Protein backbone atom coordinates (compact mmCIF):
# COMPACT_ATOMS: atom_id res chain seq x y z
CA UNK A 1 0.00 0.00 0.00
CA UNK A 2 2.96 2.32 0.62
CA UNK A 3 4.07 2.10 -3.02
CA UNK A 4 0.54 2.67 -4.27
CA UNK A 5 0.16 5.73 -2.05
CA UNK A 6 3.44 7.12 -3.33
CA UNK A 7 2.26 6.55 -6.89
CA UNK A 8 -1.08 8.23 -6.22
CA UNK A 9 0.66 11.16 -4.53
CA UNK A 10 2.89 11.50 -7.59
CA UNK A 11 -0.12 11.53 -9.88
CA UNK A 12 -1.54 14.35 -7.75
CA UNK A 13 1.54 16.56 -7.59
CA UNK A 14 2.74 16.11 -11.19
CA UNK A 15 -0.14 18.24 -12.44
CA UNK A 16 -1.12 21.63 -11.04
CA UNK A 17 -4.80 21.09 -10.41
CA UNK A 18 -4.38 20.61 -6.64
CA UNK A 19 -2.81 24.05 -6.40
CA UNK A 20 -5.49 25.86 -8.44
CA UNK A 21 -8.30 24.25 -6.48
CA UNK A 22 -6.56 25.06 -3.20
CA UNK A 23 -6.24 28.70 -4.28
CA UNK A 24 -9.92 28.65 -5.26
CA UNK A 25 -10.94 27.24 -1.87
CA UNK A 26 -8.81 29.74 0.05
CA UNK A 27 -10.05 32.67 -2.03
CA UNK A 28 -13.69 31.71 -1.60
CA UNK A 29 -13.14 31.20 2.13
CA UNK A 30 -11.60 34.68 2.36
CA UNK A 31 -14.62 36.10 0.54
CA UNK A 32 -17.16 34.32 2.79
CA UNK A 33 -15.25 35.27 5.93
CA UNK A 34 -14.95 38.92 4.85
CA UNK A 35 -18.67 39.13 4.06
CA UNK A 36 -19.48 37.54 7.39
CA UNK A 37 -17.40 40.19 9.14
CA UNK A 38 -18.79 43.04 7.05
CA UNK A 39 -22.40 42.16 7.87
CA UNK A 40 -22.04 41.22 11.52
CA UNK A 41 -23.66 44.48 12.69
CA UNK A 42 -26.56 44.08 10.23
CA UNK A 43 -29.71 43.54 12.36
CA UNK A 44 -31.21 41.25 9.69
CA UNK A 45 -28.23 38.90 9.76
CA UNK A 46 -29.07 35.45 11.14
CA UNK A 47 -25.47 34.86 12.14
CA UNK A 48 -24.63 35.47 15.78
CA UNK A 49 -22.59 38.61 16.39
CA UNK A 50 -18.83 38.32 16.12
CA UNK A 51 -18.40 39.49 19.67
CA UNK A 52 -19.98 36.22 20.88
CA UNK A 53 -18.21 32.83 21.00
CA UNK A 54 -20.87 31.44 18.61
CA UNK A 55 -20.24 34.28 16.18
CA UNK A 56 -16.51 33.66 16.25
CA UNK A 57 -17.01 29.92 15.73
CA UNK A 58 -19.24 30.65 12.75
CA UNK A 59 -16.60 32.98 11.35
CA UNK A 60 -14.00 30.22 11.52
CA UNK A 61 -16.51 27.73 10.12
CA UNK A 62 -16.96 29.74 6.91
CA UNK A 63 -13.94 27.67 5.83
CA UNK A 64 -15.97 24.46 5.81
CA UNK A 65 -18.06 24.78 2.65
CA UNK A 66 -15.32 25.97 0.26
CA UNK A 67 -12.73 23.57 1.67
CA UNK A 68 -14.97 20.51 1.59
CA UNK A 69 -16.42 21.26 -1.84
CA UNK A 70 -13.08 21.92 -3.53
CA UNK A 71 -11.52 18.90 -1.80
CA UNK A 72 -14.35 16.71 -3.06
CA UNK A 73 -13.96 18.10 -6.57
CA UNK A 74 -10.20 17.42 -6.55
CA UNK A 75 -10.81 13.89 -5.25
CA UNK A 76 -13.49 13.23 -7.85
CA UNK A 77 -11.18 14.43 -10.61
CA UNK A 78 -8.42 12.26 -9.15
CA UNK A 79 -10.41 9.12 -9.87
CA UNK A 80 -12.58 10.10 -12.87
CA UNK A 81 -9.44 11.42 -14.60
CA UNK A 82 -8.20 7.82 -14.74
CA UNK A 83 -11.15 7.00 -16.96
CA UNK A 84 -11.27 10.27 -18.86
CA UNK A 85 -7.59 10.10 -19.80
CA UNK A 86 -7.62 6.31 -20.03
CA UNK A 87 -4.80 5.96 -17.51
CA UNK A 88 -7.06 3.51 -15.66
CA UNK A 89 -5.72 0.83 -17.99
CA UNK A 90 -2.11 1.30 -16.90
CA UNK A 91 -3.17 1.81 -13.29
CA UNK A 92 -5.11 -1.46 -13.16
CA UNK A 93 -2.43 -3.33 -15.10
CA UNK A 94 0.07 -2.39 -12.40
CA UNK A 95 -2.43 -3.20 -9.64
CA UNK A 96 -4.96 -5.74 -10.91
CA UNK A 97 -6.51 -5.96 -7.44
CA UNK A 98 -8.46 -2.79 -8.07
CA UNK A 99 -9.71 -2.52 -4.50
CA UNK A 100 -6.19 -1.50 -3.51
CA UNK A 101 -6.19 1.35 -6.02
CA UNK A 102 -9.48 2.73 -4.73
CA UNK A 103 -8.37 2.38 -1.11
CA UNK A 104 -5.10 4.22 -1.88
CA UNK A 105 -7.08 7.04 -3.47
CA UNK A 106 -9.49 7.16 -0.53
CA UNK A 107 -6.60 7.47 1.92
CA UNK A 108 -4.72 10.05 -0.14
CA UNK A 109 -7.72 12.28 -0.79
CA UNK A 110 -8.90 12.01 2.82
CA UNK A 111 -5.53 13.44 3.81
CA UNK A 112 -5.65 16.08 1.07
CA UNK A 113 -9.19 17.03 2.12
CA UNK A 114 -8.00 17.48 5.69
CA UNK A 115 -5.09 19.62 4.43
CA UNK A 116 -7.43 21.79 2.34
CA UNK A 117 -9.64 22.25 5.40
CA UNK A 118 -6.64 23.22 7.53
CA UNK A 119 -5.52 25.77 4.91
CA UNK A 120 -8.98 27.35 4.71
CA UNK A 121 -9.26 27.30 8.48
CA UNK A 122 -5.93 29.12 8.65
CA UNK A 123 -7.33 31.68 6.22
CA UNK A 124 -10.32 32.53 8.42
CA UNK A 125 -8.09 32.83 11.48
CA UNK A 126 -5.53 34.96 9.65
CA UNK A 127 -8.29 37.27 8.37
CA UNK A 128 -10.14 37.35 11.66
CA UNK A 129 -7.21 38.44 13.81
CA UNK A 130 -6.59 41.87 12.21
CA UNK A 131 -10.18 42.54 11.12
CA UNK A 132 -11.77 41.76 14.47
CA UNK A 133 -9.05 43.72 16.23
CA UNK A 134 -9.90 46.71 14.03
CA UNK A 135 -13.49 46.42 15.26
CA UNK A 136 -12.31 46.30 18.88
CA UNK A 137 -13.51 42.71 19.20
CA UNK A 138 -11.36 40.28 21.15
CA UNK A 139 -10.88 37.22 18.87
CA UNK A 140 -10.67 34.30 21.29
CA UNK A 141 -9.09 31.67 19.06
CA UNK A 142 -9.20 29.04 21.78
CA UNK A 143 -12.55 30.18 23.16
CA UNK A 144 -15.52 27.97 24.10
CA UNK A 145 -16.16 25.29 21.50
CA UNK A 146 -13.41 26.60 19.22
CA UNK A 147 -11.09 23.55 19.38
CA UNK A 148 -14.06 21.33 18.50
CA UNK A 149 -14.85 23.60 15.54
CA UNK A 150 -11.24 23.34 14.33
CA UNK A 151 -11.32 19.57 14.62
CA UNK A 152 -14.75 19.44 12.98
CA UNK A 153 -13.60 21.43 9.93
CA UNK A 154 -10.58 19.18 9.40
CA UNK A 155 -12.72 16.06 9.88
CA UNK A 156 -15.24 17.41 7.35
CA UNK A 157 -12.43 17.98 4.83
CA UNK A 158 -11.35 14.39 5.34
CA UNK A 159 -14.90 13.08 4.88
CA UNK A 160 -15.42 15.07 1.68
CA UNK A 161 -12.13 13.80 0.25
CA UNK A 162 -13.52 10.30 0.71
CA UNK A 163 -16.91 11.34 -0.70
CA UNK A 164 -15.27 12.79 -3.81
CA UNK A 165 -13.35 9.59 -4.58
CA UNK A 166 -16.43 7.49 -3.87
CA UNK A 167 -18.71 9.56 -6.12
CA UNK A 168 -16.11 9.54 -8.87
CA UNK A 169 -15.76 5.77 -8.60
CA UNK A 170 -19.53 5.40 -8.86
CA UNK A 171 -20.13 7.79 -11.74
CA UNK A 172 -16.75 7.61 -13.60
CA UNK A 173 -17.90 10.46 -15.85
CA UNK A 174 -15.69 13.42 -14.92
CA UNK A 175 -17.73 16.38 -16.12
CA UNK A 176 -20.98 14.99 -14.71
CA UNK A 177 -19.39 14.28 -11.33
CA UNK A 178 -17.71 17.65 -10.96
CA UNK A 179 -20.62 19.72 -12.27
CA UNK A 180 -23.00 17.68 -10.14
CA UNK A 181 -20.90 18.27 -7.03
CA UNK A 182 -20.64 22.01 -7.65
CA UNK A 183 -24.34 22.44 -8.42
CA UNK A 184 -25.31 20.40 -5.40
CA UNK A 185 -23.03 22.20 -2.95
CA UNK A 186 -23.37 25.76 -4.23
CA UNK A 187 -26.94 25.84 -5.56
CA UNK A 188 -29.20 22.89 -4.75
CA UNK A 189 -28.28 22.37 -1.11
CA UNK A 190 -28.30 26.09 -0.12
CA UNK A 191 -31.75 26.45 -1.70
CA UNK A 192 -33.44 23.39 -0.20
CA UNK A 193 -31.98 24.03 3.23
CA UNK A 194 -33.58 27.48 3.21
CA UNK A 195 -37.07 25.99 2.90
CA UNK A 196 -38.48 25.94 6.46
CA UNK A 197 -40.98 23.20 5.68
CA UNK A 198 -38.12 20.86 4.77
CA UNK A 199 -35.88 21.58 7.77
CA UNK A 200 -36.69 18.30 9.48
CA UNK A 201 -35.33 16.48 6.43
CA UNK A 202 -32.56 18.75 5.16
CA UNK A 203 -30.93 18.56 8.59
CA UNK A 204 -29.42 15.26 7.50
CA UNK A 205 -27.94 16.39 4.17
CA UNK A 206 -24.13 16.54 3.91
CA UNK A 207 -23.97 20.36 4.11
CA UNK A 208 -26.11 20.84 7.22
CA UNK A 209 -24.46 17.77 8.76
CA UNK A 210 -21.12 19.52 8.17
CA UNK A 211 -22.49 22.72 9.75
CA UNK A 212 -23.49 20.66 12.77
CA UNK A 213 -20.09 19.00 12.95
CA UNK A 214 -18.27 22.33 12.94
CA UNK A 215 -20.54 23.78 15.64
CA UNK A 216 -22.37 26.36 13.50
CA UNK A 217 -25.17 28.36 15.07
CA UNK A 218 -27.71 30.32 13.03
CA UNK A 219 -30.70 32.09 14.56
CA UNK A 220 -33.12 30.85 11.91
CA UNK A 221 -31.92 27.26 11.66
CA UNK A 222 -31.50 24.13 13.73
CA UNK A 223 -28.68 21.69 13.32
CA UNK A 224 -28.01 18.22 14.62
CA UNK A 225 -25.59 17.79 17.51
CA UNK A 226 -21.99 17.92 16.40
CA UNK A 227 -21.47 14.19 16.90
CA UNK A 228 -24.64 13.41 14.96
CA UNK A 229 -23.46 15.59 12.09
CA UNK A 230 -20.11 13.80 12.13
CA UNK A 231 -21.85 10.43 12.19
CA UNK A 232 -24.02 11.40 9.20
CA UNK A 233 -20.96 12.49 7.19
CA UNK A 234 -19.08 9.33 8.14
CA UNK A 235 -22.11 7.31 7.10
CA UNK A 236 -22.36 8.97 3.68
CA UNK A 237 -18.63 8.54 3.15
CA UNK A 238 -18.59 4.85 4.14
CA UNK A 239 -21.66 3.81 2.16
CA UNK A 240 -20.59 5.61 -1.02
CA UNK A 241 -16.98 4.45 -0.68
CA UNK A 242 -18.10 0.85 -0.34
CA UNK A 243 -20.42 1.10 -3.35
CA UNK A 244 -17.79 2.87 -5.45
CA UNK A 245 -15.14 0.28 -4.59
CA UNK A 246 -17.41 -2.63 -5.43
CA UNK A 247 -18.40 -1.14 -8.78
CA UNK A 248 -14.78 -0.40 -9.67
CA UNK A 249 -13.77 -4.00 -9.10
CA UNK A 250 -16.64 -5.34 -11.19
CA UNK A 251 -16.86 -3.11 -14.21
CA UNK A 252 -14.86 -3.83 -17.33
CA UNK A 253 -12.12 -1.35 -18.21
CA UNK A 254 -12.61 -0.85 -21.92
Amino acid at each position, binding site marked *: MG*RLLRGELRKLVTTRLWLWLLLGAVTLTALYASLNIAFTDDPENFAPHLSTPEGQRLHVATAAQPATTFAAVLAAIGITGEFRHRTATTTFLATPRRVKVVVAKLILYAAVGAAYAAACLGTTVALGIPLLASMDIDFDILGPGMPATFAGIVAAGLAFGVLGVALGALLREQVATVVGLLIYRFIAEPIVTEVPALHDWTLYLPGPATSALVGSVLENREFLDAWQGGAMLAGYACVLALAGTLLTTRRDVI
Partner: protein
Amino acid sequence: MTTHPGRIAVSGLTKAFGTLRAVDGLDFVVEPGSVTGFLGPNGAGKTTALRMVLGLVTPDAGSVTIGGHPYIDLPAPSDTVGAALDTTGFHPNRSGRNHLRVYCAVNGYPDQRADELLDLVDLTHAGRRPVKGYSLGMRQRLALATALLGDPDALVLDEPANGLDPSGIAWLRTLLRSMADAGKAILISSHVLWEAQQLVDDVVILQDGRLLLHGSLDELTRGYDSLERAFFALTSGGL
Protein backbone atom coordinates in the same frame (compact mmCIF):
# COMPACT_ATOMS: atom_id res chain seq x y z
CA MET B 1 8.90 -28.70 -15.77
CA THR B 2 7.71 -25.26 -14.74
CA THR B 3 5.93 -22.99 -17.19
CA HIS B 4 7.96 -20.12 -18.62
CA PRO B 5 6.81 -17.03 -16.68
CA GLY B 6 5.83 -15.21 -19.87
CA ARG B 7 3.99 -17.98 -21.71
CA ILE B 8 0.48 -16.78 -22.53
CA ALA B 9 -2.17 -19.48 -22.87
CA VAL B 10 -5.67 -18.54 -23.98
CA SER B 11 -8.39 -21.14 -23.73
CA GLY B 12 -12.03 -20.97 -24.81
CA LEU B 13 -12.10 -17.21 -24.35
CA THR B 14 -15.57 -15.75 -24.93
CA LYS B 15 -17.13 -12.35 -24.41
CA ALA B 16 -20.40 -10.89 -25.63
CA PHE B 17 -21.52 -7.29 -25.49
CA GLY B 18 -25.28 -7.51 -25.67
CA THR B 19 -26.02 -9.72 -28.65
CA LEU B 20 -22.63 -9.15 -30.25
CA ARG B 21 -20.20 -11.99 -29.63
CA ALA B 22 -17.02 -9.93 -29.64
CA VAL B 23 -14.78 -12.93 -28.89
CA ASP B 24 -16.00 -16.45 -29.38
CA GLY B 25 -14.21 -19.53 -28.08
CA LEU B 26 -10.70 -18.28 -28.74
CA ASP B 27 -7.72 -20.61 -28.12
CA PHE B 28 -4.06 -19.85 -28.76
CA VAL B 29 -0.67 -19.85 -27.11
CA VAL B 30 2.10 -17.28 -27.26
CA GLU B 31 5.40 -19.07 -26.82
CA PRO B 32 8.42 -17.39 -25.29
CA GLY B 33 11.13 -16.40 -27.71
CA SER B 34 8.81 -15.46 -30.53
CA VAL B 35 6.77 -12.55 -31.76
CA THR B 36 3.17 -13.53 -32.31
CA GLY B 37 1.01 -11.29 -34.46
CA PHE B 38 -2.61 -11.01 -33.42
CA LEU B 39 -4.22 -10.07 -36.68
CA GLY B 40 -7.62 -9.33 -38.02
CA PRO B 41 -9.72 -6.55 -39.44
CA ASN B 42 -11.03 -3.70 -37.29
CA GLY B 43 -13.78 -4.96 -35.04
CA ALA B 44 -12.57 -8.56 -35.13
CA GLY B 45 -12.34 -8.60 -31.32
CA LYS B 46 -8.58 -8.16 -30.95
CA THR B 47 -8.68 -5.38 -28.38
CA THR B 48 -11.38 -7.06 -26.32
CA ALA B 49 -9.35 -10.28 -26.34
CA LEU B 50 -6.18 -8.46 -25.28
CA ARG B 51 -8.07 -6.74 -22.46
CA MET B 52 -9.29 -10.14 -21.27
CA VAL B 53 -5.72 -11.48 -21.38
CA LEU B 54 -4.78 -8.65 -19.02
CA GLY B 55 -7.67 -8.95 -16.60
CA LEU B 56 -9.23 -5.61 -17.58
CA VAL B 57 -12.33 -7.18 -19.10
CA THR B 58 -13.94 -10.20 -17.45
CA PRO B 59 -14.63 -13.01 -19.93
CA ASP B 60 -18.04 -14.66 -20.06
CA ALA B 61 -16.28 -18.00 -20.48
CA GLY B 62 -12.78 -19.38 -20.91
CA SER B 63 -9.54 -18.43 -19.26
CA VAL B 64 -6.13 -16.92 -19.81
CA THR B 65 -2.98 -17.77 -17.93
CA ILE B 66 0.38 -16.07 -18.04
CA GLY B 67 3.16 -18.31 -16.82
CA GLY B 68 0.39 -20.55 -15.49
CA HIS B 69 -1.44 -17.85 -13.51
CA PRO B 70 -4.40 -15.62 -14.28
CA TYR B 71 -3.26 -11.99 -14.58
CA ILE B 72 -4.97 -10.94 -11.34
CA ASP B 73 -2.98 -13.57 -9.39
CA LEU B 74 0.44 -12.51 -10.66
CA PRO B 75 2.50 -11.52 -7.62
CA ALA B 76 4.30 -8.71 -9.48
CA PRO B 77 2.27 -8.15 -12.65
CA SER B 78 4.44 -5.42 -14.14
CA ASP B 79 7.54 -7.60 -13.74
CA THR B 80 5.80 -10.39 -15.65
CA VAL B 81 3.75 -8.66 -18.33
CA GLY B 82 4.28 -5.31 -19.98
CA ALA B 83 1.34 -4.00 -21.92
CA ALA B 84 0.68 -1.03 -24.15
CA LEU B 85 -2.98 -0.97 -25.09
CA ASP B 86 -3.61 2.51 -26.33
CA THR B 87 -1.75 5.64 -27.20
CA THR B 88 -4.20 7.93 -25.41
CA GLY B 89 -3.61 6.59 -21.90
CA PHE B 90 -1.75 9.60 -20.56
CA HIS B 91 -2.72 12.65 -18.58
CA PRO B 92 -2.28 15.50 -21.08
CA ASN B 93 -0.67 17.84 -18.55
CA ARG B 94 1.74 15.30 -17.06
CA SER B 95 5.18 15.02 -18.63
CA GLY B 96 6.25 11.74 -20.18
CA ARG B 97 8.97 11.41 -17.57
CA ASN B 98 6.55 11.96 -14.70
CA HIS B 99 4.14 9.48 -16.25
CA LEU B 100 6.86 6.84 -16.07
CA ARG B 101 7.88 7.93 -12.56
CA VAL B 102 4.32 7.39 -11.31
CA TYR B 103 4.53 3.75 -12.34
CA CYS B 104 8.09 3.45 -10.99
CA ALA B 105 6.63 4.43 -7.61
CA VAL B 106 3.65 2.09 -7.89
CA ASN B 107 5.80 -0.87 -8.91
CA GLY B 108 8.70 -0.10 -6.59
CA TYR B 109 11.27 0.48 -9.34
CA PRO B 110 14.01 3.06 -8.84
CA ASP B 111 13.18 6.44 -10.44
CA GLN B 112 16.21 6.28 -12.71
CA ARG B 113 14.39 3.49 -14.55
CA ALA B 114 12.14 6.20 -16.05
CA ASP B 115 15.15 7.94 -17.58
CA GLU B 116 16.59 4.67 -18.84
CA LEU B 117 13.36 3.88 -20.63
CA LEU B 118 13.03 7.39 -22.10
CA ASP B 119 16.49 6.85 -23.48
CA LEU B 120 15.62 3.42 -24.86
CA VAL B 121 12.59 4.72 -26.76
CA ASP B 122 14.42 7.86 -27.83
CA LEU B 123 12.19 10.30 -25.94
CA THR B 124 14.75 11.87 -23.58
CA HIS B 125 14.54 15.18 -25.43
CA ALA B 126 10.77 15.38 -24.82
CA GLY B 127 10.65 13.73 -21.41
CA ARG B 128 9.94 16.88 -19.42
CA ARG B 129 7.27 18.21 -21.76
CA PRO B 130 3.55 17.57 -21.16
CA VAL B 131 2.23 14.63 -23.15
CA LYS B 132 -0.41 16.82 -24.83
CA GLY B 133 2.37 18.10 -27.11
CA TYR B 134 3.42 14.61 -28.22
CA SER B 135 2.82 13.24 -31.70
CA LEU B 136 1.14 9.85 -32.14
CA GLY B 137 4.54 8.26 -32.72
CA MET B 138 5.89 9.76 -29.49
CA ARG B 139 2.87 8.52 -27.53
CA GLN B 140 3.43 5.12 -29.04
CA ARG B 141 7.01 5.17 -27.77
CA LEU B 142 5.94 6.36 -24.34
CA ALA B 143 3.34 3.58 -24.13
CA LEU B 144 6.06 1.09 -25.04
CA ALA B 145 8.38 2.56 -22.41
CA THR B 146 5.63 2.14 -19.81
CA ALA B 147 5.22 -1.48 -20.84
CA LEU B 148 8.96 -2.12 -20.55
CA LEU B 149 9.45 -0.50 -17.11
CA GLY B 150 9.53 -3.82 -15.29
CA ASP B 151 11.66 -5.64 -17.89
CA PRO B 152 8.77 -8.12 -18.18
CA ASP B 153 8.79 -11.73 -19.42
CA ALA B 154 5.87 -11.08 -21.76
CA LEU B 155 4.84 -8.10 -23.85
CA VAL B 156 1.33 -7.40 -25.06
CA LEU B 157 1.12 -4.51 -27.50
CA ASP B 158 -2.02 -3.30 -29.25
CA GLU B 159 -1.20 -1.81 -32.67
CA PRO B 160 2.33 -0.75 -31.62
CA ALA B 161 3.36 0.29 -35.12
CA ASN B 162 0.42 2.63 -35.57
CA GLY B 163 1.74 6.18 -35.91
CA LEU B 164 5.38 5.19 -36.33
CA ASP B 165 7.21 6.37 -39.41
CA PRO B 166 9.17 3.81 -41.51
CA SER B 167 12.33 4.30 -39.46
CA GLY B 168 10.24 3.94 -36.31
CA ILE B 169 8.87 0.64 -37.57
CA ALA B 170 12.39 -0.55 -38.37
CA TRP B 171 13.42 0.45 -34.86
CA LEU B 172 10.42 -1.37 -33.35
CA ARG B 173 11.25 -4.49 -35.36
CA THR B 174 14.82 -4.51 -34.05
CA LEU B 175 13.65 -3.93 -30.50
CA LEU B 176 10.99 -6.66 -30.59
CA ARG B 177 13.41 -9.07 -32.24
CA SER B 178 16.04 -8.53 -29.55
CA MET B 179 13.41 -9.01 -26.85
CA ALA B 180 12.14 -12.21 -28.44
CA ASP B 181 15.73 -13.44 -28.75
CA ALA B 182 16.13 -12.71 -25.05
CA GLY B 183 13.32 -15.19 -24.43
CA LYS B 184 10.34 -12.92 -23.96
CA ALA B 185 6.90 -13.90 -25.21
CA ILE B 186 5.56 -11.12 -27.41
CA LEU B 187 2.02 -10.64 -28.62
CA ILE B 188 1.29 -7.70 -30.90
CA SER B 189 -1.98 -6.89 -32.59
CA SER B 190 -2.29 -5.25 -35.95
CA HIS B 191 -4.84 -4.69 -38.65
CA VAL B 192 -2.16 -3.68 -41.12
CA LEU B 193 -0.88 -6.92 -42.58
CA TRP B 194 2.15 -5.66 -44.49
CA GLU B 195 3.32 -3.98 -41.31
CA ALA B 196 2.79 -7.10 -39.25
CA GLN B 197 4.62 -9.21 -41.79
CA GLN B 198 7.80 -7.31 -41.00
CA LEU B 199 7.48 -7.89 -37.27
CA VAL B 200 6.11 -11.33 -36.46
CA ASP B 201 7.13 -15.02 -36.42
CA ASP B 202 3.76 -16.55 -35.67
CA VAL B 203 0.28 -15.39 -36.47
CA VAL B 204 -3.10 -15.69 -34.82
CA ILE B 205 -5.79 -14.50 -37.17
CA LEU B 206 -9.12 -13.47 -35.77
CA GLN B 207 -12.30 -12.81 -37.69
CA ASP B 208 -15.67 -11.93 -36.14
CA GLY B 209 -14.33 -12.93 -32.76
CA ARG B 210 -13.30 -16.41 -33.86
CA LEU B 211 -9.92 -17.94 -34.48
CA LEU B 212 -9.38 -18.27 -38.20
CA LEU B 213 -5.83 -19.51 -38.11
CA HIS B 214 -2.93 -20.04 -35.75
CA GLY B 215 0.48 -20.90 -37.18
CA SER B 216 3.87 -19.69 -38.24
CA LEU B 217 4.21 -16.85 -40.71
CA ASP B 218 6.34 -19.06 -42.97
CA GLU B 219 3.71 -21.78 -43.20
CA LEU B 220 0.92 -19.33 -43.82
CA THR B 221 2.61 -17.38 -46.56
CA ARG B 222 4.06 -20.40 -48.38
CA GLY B 223 2.91 -20.12 -51.99
CA TYR B 224 1.93 -16.46 -51.64
CA ASP B 225 4.07 -13.38 -52.11
CA SER B 226 2.73 -11.64 -49.01
CA LEU B 227 0.78 -12.16 -45.80
CA GLU B 228 -1.89 -9.92 -47.25
CA ARG B 229 -2.45 -12.17 -50.26
CA ALA B 230 -2.41 -15.25 -48.07
CA PHE B 231 -4.93 -13.64 -45.77
CA PHE B 232 -7.34 -12.73 -48.54
CA ALA B 233 -7.02 -16.15 -50.10
CA LEU B 234 -7.80 -17.66 -46.75
CA THR B 235 -10.72 -15.40 -45.85
CA SER B 236 -12.37 -15.48 -49.27
CA GLY B 237 -12.02 -19.25 -49.29
CA GLY B 238 -14.12 -19.29 -46.18
CA LEU B 239 -16.97 -17.36 -47.77
